[in-house]
């Protein structure tokens, strides 16, 4: 095999090692690339800014630990933003693993802003059924969730006073890594009940939601770790997402280098052996 052919068919384990180094080194020695805030993230931020203190926001944690690096920082930033504006958070999850993650983010932010469980935030927990649960919540929240995630009756919690259904909720945000998730909230929440819906999604699924953004069905959206980093910038702080952007930048750069490198040798090879494709 000529050097061209050998380089074209590089052992993928070498690629794996280089990617590992590209991710680890910037985490250990940050570079400090500047992060610009994009419009969808700005719109989501403004949607929360426009709410009156005391408004209720549903944050639905529809993700699991595998997508935590991208979505958990969004969860944290949103919880902090809501509490800084004295908004009340009604947490829940269409994925069972999302519930403890949502709880952790709310507890962290509550400690920072002096908020208490049951008064300023609640975690209703998980219910199986996806879109069925969303329809149920739209009609009657206490009937769908008679108890919170820890088994306390919601009727005893001050935050749920007078909360019957979507009519008592000002904003819905779905932090979603797949299905059920944003689509269900948009279909029922925005499509059927006309509620304002925002989203936080993984980078790979963000392109699929641009049509919803354009059509106005989503008021704003955070896409991937970059979206989370941008929201952290708007909250005038840094978090895990901002710190991860350096590593992501270098990794992207390396993958682009691989592609160009491989194509260079492919084109050289083609010139030398034009019958070979």
């Amino acid at each position: 095999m000529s050097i061209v052919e050998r380089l074209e068919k590089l052992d993928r384990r070498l690629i794996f090692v280089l990617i590992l180094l590209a991710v680890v080194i910037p985490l250990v020695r940050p570079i400090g690339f500047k992060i610009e805030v994009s419009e969808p993230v700005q719109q989501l931020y403004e949607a929360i800014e426009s709410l009156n203190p005391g408004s209720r926001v549903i944050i639905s944690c529809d993700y699991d630990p595998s997508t935590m690096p991208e979505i958990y920082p969004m969860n944290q930033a949103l919880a902090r933003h809501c509490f800084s504006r004295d908004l009340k958070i009604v947490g829940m999850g269409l994925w069972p693993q999302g519930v403890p993650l949502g709880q952790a983010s709310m507890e962290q932010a509550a400690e920072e802003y002096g908020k208490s469980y049951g008064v300023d935030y609640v975690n209703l927990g998980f219910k199986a059924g996806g879109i069925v649960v969303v329809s149920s919540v739209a009609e009657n929240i206490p009937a769908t969730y008679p108890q919170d995630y820890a088994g306390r009756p919601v009727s005893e919690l001050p935050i749920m006073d007078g909360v019957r259904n979507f009519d008592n909720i000002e904003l819905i945000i779905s932090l979603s890594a797949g299905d059920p998730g944003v689509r269900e909230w948009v279909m029922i929440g925005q499509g059927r009940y006309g509620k304002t819906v925002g989203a936080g999604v993984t980078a790979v699924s963000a392109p699929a939601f641009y049509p919803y953004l354009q059509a106005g069905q989503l008021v704003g959206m955070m896409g991937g770790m970059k979206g989370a980093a941008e929201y952290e910038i708007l909250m005038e702080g840094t978090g895990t997402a901002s710190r991860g952007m350096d590593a992501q930048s270098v990794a992207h750069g390396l993958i682009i280098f691989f592609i160009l490198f491989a194509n260079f040798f492919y084109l050289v090879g083609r010139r030398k052996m034009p019958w070979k494709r």
Partner: protein
Amino acid sequence: MKKQIPLLITFVAGMVMLVQYFIPHRPFSEVYRLFNQWYLVVAVFAMILGIGNLIKIHSVRLRRRGSGWQYSIVLLCSLGVMGVAGLGWGIERGGFFDYLYWNMYYPLSSTMFALLAFFVASASYRAFRARTAEATLLLASAILVMLGRVPLGNYLWDRLPLLGDWIMSYPNMAGQRAIMIGIALGVVSTSLRIILGIERTYLAGR
């Protein structure tokens, strides 16, 4: 008869759910709520069924010393420990279940997901070749979007993120919408075939 009853159930359930979407009046709104509740119950039972099946398969493998029986022990023990921890001591923060969740399940799950980073690199290296004009165009767009979505792009040229966003918001979205419309039509056609009993392979057999 074995085939007729499921087809009849499919037809009735399908038509009822179709009709209730357009008729808000009772009893159709009640039917929808009823079906919703039944589905919630069925979903929970399906979980129980799945767990039962998993235990059965691995117990049999363990008993027969089938290939990989040692891993069956690990699986059954993990299932037992997590189940007992959750049911016995609750799932609240600070509990044993919570400890296992954050220190075992979470790292394992994240690790599998992290494999994607490596596989994307190796797949890109292997497959992204400028074989045709379209492939070259795809390659160029991919590079622009990849750079535009990280701070590195902004560092190289401050207009790069805007270019990347433009590609995502217009050509990409147009393509996504076209695929979504095609899929929606395919779903309607397939659903119609299933409700009317024209398509029966999913029920097993012709």
